[in-house]
């Protein structure tokens, strides 16, 4: 029953799933985040990061402060793409919207890829 406790509320990840990861040999918050999505939701791990650290600390017998933290990535809070796009347009007044070569490099100069 206790294992059904939700650890990551954004992605519905239970304590049972975290313990299974540890049993499968995962050793860091970063790895558990990548295979379960715990910490990838809108709150970006504010709640679950330390709860997972606690499980790792217990399982591997290391003090909490020695558990490797995952990277804190921007933005701090979710921001709408529209607001960000408008911010760019405001700072690039007069530039041909965002189309064409004005902002994007030519393919032969390197560009996006998957």
């Amino acid at each position, binding site marked *: 029953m206790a294992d059904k406790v939700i650890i990551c509320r954004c992605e519905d990840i239970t304590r049972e799933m975290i313990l299974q990861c540890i049993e499968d040999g995962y*050793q*860091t918050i*970063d*790895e558990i985040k*990548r*295979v379960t*999505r715990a910490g*990838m*939701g*809108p709150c*970006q791990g504010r709640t679950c990061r330390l709860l997972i650290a606690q499980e790792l600390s217990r399982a591997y017998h290391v003090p909490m402060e020695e558990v490797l933290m995952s*990277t804190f*990535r*921007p*933005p701090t809070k*979710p*921001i*709408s*793409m*529209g607001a*960000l*796009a408008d*911010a*760019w*347009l405001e*700072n*690039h007044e007069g530039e041909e*919207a*965002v*189309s*064409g*070569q004005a*902002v*994007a*490099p*030519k*393919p032969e*100069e*390197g*560009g*996006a*890829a*998957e």
Partner: protein
Amino acid sequence: MKKGYDVVVIGGGIVGCATAFELAKRGVKDILLIEKRFLTAGATGRCGAGIRQQWGSELNASIALESTNILENLEEYTGYPHSVELHQGGYLLVAYTDKEWDQFQKNLEVQHRLGIDSYALTPEEMKKKVPYLNLDGVKGGTFNQKDGHANPFHCTQAYAYGARKMGVDIETFCEATGFRMKNGAIAGVETTKGYIEAKTVINCANTRAPELAKMVGEDIPVISERHQALVTEPVAPLIDCMVMAFSRSYYVQQTPHGSFVMGIGPKETPSHNFKSSWQFLEHNCAVMCEALPILRNLRVVRQWAGQYDMSPDANPVIDEAAECKNFYSVCGFSGHGFMVSPRVAIMVANYLTGQEDTLDIHRFSKKRFETGELLLEPAVV
């Protein structure tokens, strides 16, 4: 970890894990894979996860086609008990210039020769596929249903899982710091966890591969270039396919989870910079909201940066070190390593175990930059 191995693979991304798996599958018994951090900590875990067969050169299209065939059954192939989340919703490639549109017709011919089921779409037909696409400036597009994406974390873990089952040792948080040679051949690897004897070393360290090769006197013309991506909150299904444009340098896809993953690719000076920038965040949103205005309503939850290991012709460099026998480098994937790794790993493993292969590994030698026999690819970004 033992004190010596027949083969030591350096790098816990998909190239290293798939190579270790394919070698073990061919009966190589004594393999160790070392990784500086954890599996997928580098470029694989930071990539856009796309897989496509819509290439412009026969070589890349056929490697991508055969790689997709493996990814379609990767769970069974490796025995991995989880899904690798392959979704074949297709890639819609968007042409914004006449030159690009002409090139797309040529690419289709190449793809059709290989039996790839791609086809051209008019702007109106594109609108039917992706109703949210802004058609301003769009000349046309091409589509292939078999393209799509897979989860890079799970694909890599699948190969690692299968490799471990066949006896491969995987040591994480173990960094290669130097090499020892004997009579012009590799003898072992110095690591942060001690010295390991090795009869063969395979350097799959992506953007760090050139500096490792340098330690055995080998120059590899591969540079490191930062690229960034971001992901939004999950929403109900809106777009089934990847939408990508070379001339405007963007790609965007909705994952099965509901979030949108996207990126744009301005050229940067070579670096090992792994930091995210606010400039990317704003610029990416401006480019993407222009192409797909519906994205304005979505919120960005996270952004990150990764590295492309760029080679001069944007194709892999696979070679044995000239001054150090049995030291091989497999790098220079230039931003599309994830989608070609299954087939490339097979080619490398076939070569090292003396088995025949329809692909000639020597085409990937760095000699091509001297002889001019470049692996030119028109549909690369």
